[in-house]
């Protein structure tokens, strides 16, 4: 393929004094070209993105104070997002004398199981996850927890983002200190 027919017809005469032209091979060494080809391939593989960014739907509730008090204690699970990717949770409502039993800390790895256990143990109509983000939690945490809801197939309307109360914030601070999270 890379060769060409170089054998000339030999029609012209060559006298005794005429030097025979040295026949050069037209075979080109393609190794450098192959090198270049693969170099460019690697370059393109590294610079381009195959994965397209996706979009996640976000539905915010209307601010409606009447709607907020309708959550049943038995079906509620409050998930609190703290700094350093820490997750805290409690079921129902915090009761002053049982706080230390109720308020537990976990992480993003284990929260999926907890969400699922709660979902299976609760009547779907009563089920409600309340998500509260700390000032020091990140955007990633907020998206991750919403993603966990999608992963565990919690129907929309059964989870909501709510502002954190001061008591909860204090509890997180205490737990952080106890666990040595800076």
């Amino acid at each position: 393929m890379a060769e060409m027919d170089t054998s000339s017809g030999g029609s012209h005469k060559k006298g005794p004094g005429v030097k025979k032209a040295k026949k050069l091979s037209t075979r080109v060494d393609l190794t450098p070209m192959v090198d270049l080809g693969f170099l460019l391939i690697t370059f393109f593989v590294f610079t381009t993105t195959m994965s397209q960014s996706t979009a996640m739907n976000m539905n915010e509730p209307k601010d409606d104070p009447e709607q907020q008090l309708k959550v049943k204690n038995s079906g509620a699970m409050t998930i609190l997002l703290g700094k350093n990717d820490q997750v805290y949770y409690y079921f129902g409502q915090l009761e002053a004398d049982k706080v230390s039993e109720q308020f537990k800390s976990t992480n993003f790895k284990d929260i999926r199981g907890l969400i699922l256990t709660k979902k299976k143990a609760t009547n779907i109509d009563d089920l409600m996850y309340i998500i509260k983000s700390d000032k020091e939690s990140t955007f990633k945490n907020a998206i991750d927890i919403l993603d966990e809801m999608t992963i565990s197939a919690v129907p929309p309307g059964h989870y909501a983002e709510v502002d954190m109360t001061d008591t909860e914030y204090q509890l997180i601070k205490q737990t952080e200190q106890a666990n040595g999270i800076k």
Partner: protein
Amino acid sequence: MPKVKIPRKSTAIDMTAMCDVAFLLLSFFILATKQKPPEVLSVTPPESVSSKAAPDKSILITLTKDGKAFLMLGDDTKKEDILKDINTTKGLNLSAGELAKWKKQGFIGLPLNQIKSSLALSTEIPAAQMPGIPTDSTNNEMSDWLRSITNAYKGTAQNKLQEMLLVKGDNSVLYPAFKNIKQAFKKNEIYKFRIVTNGEAVPVGSELYNSQPK
């Protein structure tokens, strides 16, 4: 006894075929991939299991690592209307020439009161030096922007707008920055928007995984 002659073969291999393959792959990669658009704002979005592709044309609010908010108006047909609207509602006193210059800029990352002076400059301010659009609760200019945007997409274009509103945030942005953006949306009675994420596979064995048709 005659020696057995081993025919000596040349070790030079014909590289033509390999060369063909290399360039075939090269052309495939060039054609199949999309070149990354030059990103002035480097942001690593979080991951989600959502599989919907982000639309190309969009109104994008970007939150950078340090919590600055930037706005990109990707729909050229409405961009002028939006800028005109904010010019009149917020009294920026921009001339037609300044508006045209503003329209050419890629994204908005300045407080409204700095817009006029920045347009007088001969060069654009680099993104890293822009302070971002103020979003705190006392002066949430993002909500002014969103009002102008909703004004521009009045009537039938409303549905189109819902598809286009995107928020892209860096992984390490603190939550209050995102909350301010949400507040701006709520103030304008926009309850639906979308978050730009990187696609991620649905974890095997999860509820969502089991409910998906195989």
